[in-house]
Structures are given as C-alpha cells and as structure tokens.
C-alpha cells in the first residue's frame, strides 16, 4: 500500500489535495490578517490638487485627528504610499502629473475622490481648464461629496474604504 502511495501520479494528486486543504484553511485568516494590516496603515501621498487641501489639513489636526486611523502623511517618497486623496479640482495642467503619480505608486493602491470638483467638476463644470471629474483618468474607490467636505465626512470616507478593503480578496 505504501508503494502505491509513493507512486509518482498518486503522490502528485496527494500533494495537490493537501495544497487545496491548506489554501482553504489558511486563506481566510491569512487574508484577514493581511487586510487588517492594510486597513490600519493607509498612507496618503502628499499631493494637493486644489482648495479641499485645507480641509484635509484640518483633518490631520488635533481635533479631527486622522492619525489614530493610521493615516499618516508620509513625508518620504511616494513609493511607500498606498492611498491618493484627490483633493478638489483637477485642472488640465495637473492631470498628467496626477496620472504619473498614480502610476508610480506600488500595488495595492486606493483612490479617494474628495470634493464635488473631483467627482464631477463641481462648481467649475463650465470652466475651460477643469476636468469634469477625475474618474476619467484614474479608477476611484470612494467618492466623498461636499464643497469642501467636512473633516468628519472625510473620515467617514476613509472608513468606507476600510470596509471595502476588508471585503476584498488578497492577490
């Protein structure tokens, strides 16, 4: 019987089935652990697009402390960030730079579109230099409405993003 088991084809099948069992056993807790790590350390890129950056700055202040959620503005390079908050109007001049910054960030990366101007162009919909919404150039995960959104709204947007990450499968 042992000789039958150690037969090459049978051995392959046994290893394959063992792999299946291990993946199913570990996928759920491992995925949970990895997602938990990602949720509580979302680091945004230091890119200010327009006037909503003032409310983003206020959100990092002592009253609406967003650092307790792990969202620290990383003053290092953008190669170590995984969140980009598009704060406000994106003009035609800023759009290629925004795309370049998005491309340089490592995977997995998330995008929050903050403010009415980043969602649809907002108050400046009929200006000659403004993009009607940023989801034409980068894929957006969470939309945070407001003009400008209150810091509490921004924190709620971050929590929605956390819910979304919790539900996602790790690659």
């Amino acid at each position: 019987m042992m000789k039958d088991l150690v037969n090459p084809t049978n051995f392959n099948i046994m290893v394959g089935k063992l792999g299946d069992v291990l993946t199913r056993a570990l996928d759920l807790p491992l995925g949970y652990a990895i997602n938990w790590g990602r949720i509580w350390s979302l680091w945004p890129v230091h890119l200010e697009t327009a006037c909503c950056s003032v409310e983003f700055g206020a959100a990092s202040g002592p009253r609406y402390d967003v650092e307790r959620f792990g969202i620290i503005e990383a003053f290092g390079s953008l190669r170590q960030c995984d969140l980009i908050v598009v704060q406000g109007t994106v003009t035609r001049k800023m759009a290629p730079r925004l795309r370049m910054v998005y491309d340089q960030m490592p995977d997995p990366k998330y995008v929050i579109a903050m403010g009415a101007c980043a969602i649809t162009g907002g108050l400046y919909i009929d200006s000659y230099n403004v993009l009607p919404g940023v989801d034409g150039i980068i894929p957006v995960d969470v939309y945070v409405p407001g003009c400008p959104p209150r810091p509490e709204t921004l924190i709620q947007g971050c929590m929605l993003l956390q819910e979304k990450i919790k539900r996602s499968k790790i690659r």
Partner: protein
Amino acid sequence: MSSDQSKTQNGSEQKKSSSDLTPTSISKKTESITPQFEGSLINQLVTRFGDKLVQVIYVRPGRTKILVPPNEIVQVASFIKDSLGFDHAESVSGTDYPNDNQIEVIYHLSSYSDDKLSSQILALSTRVDRNESRMPTLINIFRSAEYHERETFEMLGVYFEGHPRNERFLLPEDWADIPPLRKEFRIKGR
C-alpha cells in the same frame, strides 16, 4: 471709441438705483483728500503732454484714469514715475472691446514711498488694435508689471515689445486655442 468714452463719463455721474437707503450709514470715503488733489495731478500731466496726447477719462476721489496712444505710453509712464512719484504698478489687465475692434490695456499705478499718494490709484490706459495688438512694455519703468504683462499676453494676445518672455504662463502646455479672455471664446454650454 467716442461712444465708449461717453459711456464711462456717464458712469461718473451715477444715478441712484432703487435700493433702500438707510440714513445712518457713514461715509466710506476719507474727507482729507478731495478731487482737488487728483485734479492737480491730472493738470500736471496735461500741461506737460498736451490735451491731444493725454485724454482724461474720469477724476474721482482717489481714482483717476487717463488714456494715451500706445506709442507714447513709455514717455508718459516715465514722467509719472519721475515727477509725480508713483513707484509701482498694482495690476495690469486687458479688456476686450470687440465693438470698437480694440483691446484696452490698463495699468493701475500707486505709490508706497509718498504719503499723500498712497491712497491714490492712477489708471494709465491705452487702446491697441485687436488684430495687430502690439505695444511697448513698461517693465523698465515699473518692474512689478512683469508677470502681469505676461499673463495679459497669454490671456488676450497682446504682444509687449521688449518684454523678455512673451510666453504661456498659467495655461497648460498644450493649449491650442485662442486666448481665453477674448469675447469670441465661449465657455462650453453657454
């Protein structure tokens, strides 16, 4: 051009609109400087250059406006700086008048060093032709007009001869349209 001039002259004698006037409001303008002082400034200009060169558009408390032809603007500006004492340009802007086929470039000049002139703004304006809009630059006299002139070139298409950089400033690098502040540039949907 004369019809536009008469329109702006009518503006200085403003008629009351139908708004509610509360009698307890205080006057917003200071009492110490009267149009006499502004009138004396304008008289100096007119006596130096003559009536044909310097046309007076309006004289109000604190604000005066003159109109000169484009090729004489350099000598008028150096006289204003050297003799009258205005030392910087607060803003330079252009307005498009397609009905008269002209663009009006206006320099708002003020003074920091002279106490009596610090509340005065002298508007030095000139009109250039819309299709051939060139005029000499004033940055050798008023250095603070440098970026404003560059922006006027970009937004209206007025070429300043002698300015080192008549280039795009605020618009994106791939702007391929007419200058945006011209009246034939319509915003989409309007």
